[in-house]
């Protein structure tokens, strides 16, 4: 890739969302707005290598897109006029005055773009693709590589999503009143989905995958600046900053996963921890300490604050899981609560909670349930039962390294004397 091409890519990453948002405000529809912005990008790719990058590339892109928009509007008006002349009713009685104001976009425009890209009328994977494309400045092939799906699939999702938004006449605006809560929940869900997709990346994956964490984190910070009064936005940003802080410690030299309590905490990212704790404090100041994201962030913060794993405040963590189980109940939250309780108040208390999950259908094949029960039974000295649970967990996990780890634990459950390693 040439230097100019890389420069244009960088400018696009910075400017595209603002250009698309400003255009969408004028034309009222993100589909055509994105196409006009893409036209401007193509024009830049054609002219900048020869002319050099202009002093204010953002303004250049905006002005070029605006001219394309005016051209398009004139053509449409002409077509409308011809239809009128022929005695047909005009399909478009009103065309916004494009020339009037296509100046600096406001924060509201960018915020509207985020809400539209994450609109609940769209399927979840379409919201994710559209958000990365319109707000993250990612190209279709980059999104495809990051999500391990064919490029045509992503292209199709985006085309359909734009059509759906247009057909549903989704207003380009920031939702107000009761609608805001539901729409914001969708935005936060999309950002966290993007983040988790990156977090699930393993060694050997395309580098675009872990890059998704960075994209989600950046969009979260952008959102927090645009909607500073929304506590759950800060809660989500905090959660992502704190989880991202452990990125370098999560895998060993061979790419094997390292559990939270086994991680080398010196490898945790101090800058992200500091930012995560600050964002959590902001969420709590705004009265949002009980939101599902803020509670998960508070749990992550307990780990971040512990200098060594032994210092972890499990009593506080189990209290936070109690709250989380009330506001966002799920079998996985319940299992984490059981694990936290077992570390705070002893294995018997934890096992009581974990046993209640044995009939939960969604956890039937979830290896972490037998693995957690195995740990509690082991600590209670019920070794034969612990061994069976570790073996069951090993059979359920799809990760070879985790399987080896669980079988190792099963082996250490053999009665004393039979295994010299036990001490």
């Amino acid at each position, binding site marked *: 890739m040439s*230097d100019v091409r*890389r*420069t244009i*890519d*960088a*400018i696009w*990453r*910075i400017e595209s969302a603002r250009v698309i948002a400003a255009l969408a405000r004028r034309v009222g529809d993100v589909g055509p707005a994105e196409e006009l912005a893409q036209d401007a990008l193509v024009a830049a790719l054609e002219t900048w290598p020869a002319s050099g990058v202009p*002093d204010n*590339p953002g303004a250049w892109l905006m002005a070029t897109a605006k001219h394309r928009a005016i051209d398009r509007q004139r053509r449409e008006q002409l077509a409308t006029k011809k239809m009128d002349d022929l005695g047909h009713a005009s399909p478009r009685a009103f065309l916004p005055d494009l020339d009037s104001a296509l100046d600096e976009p406001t*924060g509201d425009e960018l915020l509207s773009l985020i809400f539209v890209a994450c609109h609940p009328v769209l399927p979840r994977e379409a919201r994710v693709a559209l958000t990365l494309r319109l707000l993250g400045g990612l190209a279709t092939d980059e999104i495809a590589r990051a999500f391990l799906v064919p490029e045509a699939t992503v292209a199709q999702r985006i085309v359909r999503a734009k059509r759906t938004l247009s057909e549903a006449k989704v207003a380009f605006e920031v939702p107000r009143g009761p609608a805001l809560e539901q729409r914001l929940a969708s935005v936060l869900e999309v950002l966290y989905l993007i983040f988790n997709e990156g977090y699930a990346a393993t060694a050997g994956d395309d580098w675009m995958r*872990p*890059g998704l964490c*960075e994209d989600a*984190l*950046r*969009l*979260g*910070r*952008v959102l927090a*600046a*645009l909607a500073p009064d929304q506590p759950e936005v800060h809660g989500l940003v905090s959660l992502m900053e704190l989880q991202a802080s452990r*990125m*370098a410690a999560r895998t060993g030299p061979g790419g094997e996963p390292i559990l939270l309590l086994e991680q*080398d*905490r*010196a*490898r*945790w*990212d*101090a*800058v992200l921890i500091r*930012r995560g704790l600050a964002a959590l404090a902001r969420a709590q100041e705004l009265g949002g300490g009980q939101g599902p994201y803020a509670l998960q962030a508070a749990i992550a913060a307990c780990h971040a604050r512990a200098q060594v794993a032994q210092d972890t405040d499990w009593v506080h963590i189990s209290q936070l899981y109690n709250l989380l189980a009330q506001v966002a109940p799920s079998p996985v939250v319940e299992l984490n609560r059981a694990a936290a309780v077992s570390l705070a108040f002893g294995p018997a208390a934890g096992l009581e909670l974990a046993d209640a999950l044995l009939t939960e259908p969604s956890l039937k094949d979830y290896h972490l349930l037998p693995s957690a029960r195995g740990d509690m039974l082991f600590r209670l000295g019920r070794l034969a039962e612990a061994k069976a649970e570790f073996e069951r967990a090993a059979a359920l996990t799809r990760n070879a390294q985790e399987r080896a780890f669980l079988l190792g634990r099963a082996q250490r459950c053999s009665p004393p004397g039979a295994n010299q390693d036990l001490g």
Partner: protein
Amino acid sequence: MRFMMLMIPTGYEKAQPQAAPPPEAIEMMMKYNDSLRKAGVLLSLDGLHPPAKGVRLSRAGGKLKVTDGPFAETKEALGGYWILQVKSKEEAIEWASRCPAVQPYAPDGVATIELRQLQELTDFSPDAQKVVEKYPELAKLAANQPGR
């Protein structure tokens, strides 16, 4: 990747101890800083007092030499820095090019911006990495970590 963006204001090496930019200049810089924050790329930033309030230490003639600022021999001095989280060197350059100090309205040569990528543990040789890893508490203070 993370970059330190360094601000080197021309003449800062000779600035008076109490030297400070006029409020209008500060306002423009704050707007710029805020644009970095709103774009989600700014991790941290600080401004530095002039060298006139600084001290330099070196070894000269077999002795420790401690010199109060300003330092006659220096040709440039740092005025402040930003830590940016970006996807490419080009993106860092793009953000730097928007700094008020290098805008068309700024006088020629009023300042220089320098970009330096933050080192990661993996940039060190395996032997050097082993040495660094003996000091886990220091790693916690670094503004960068492997894999970022």
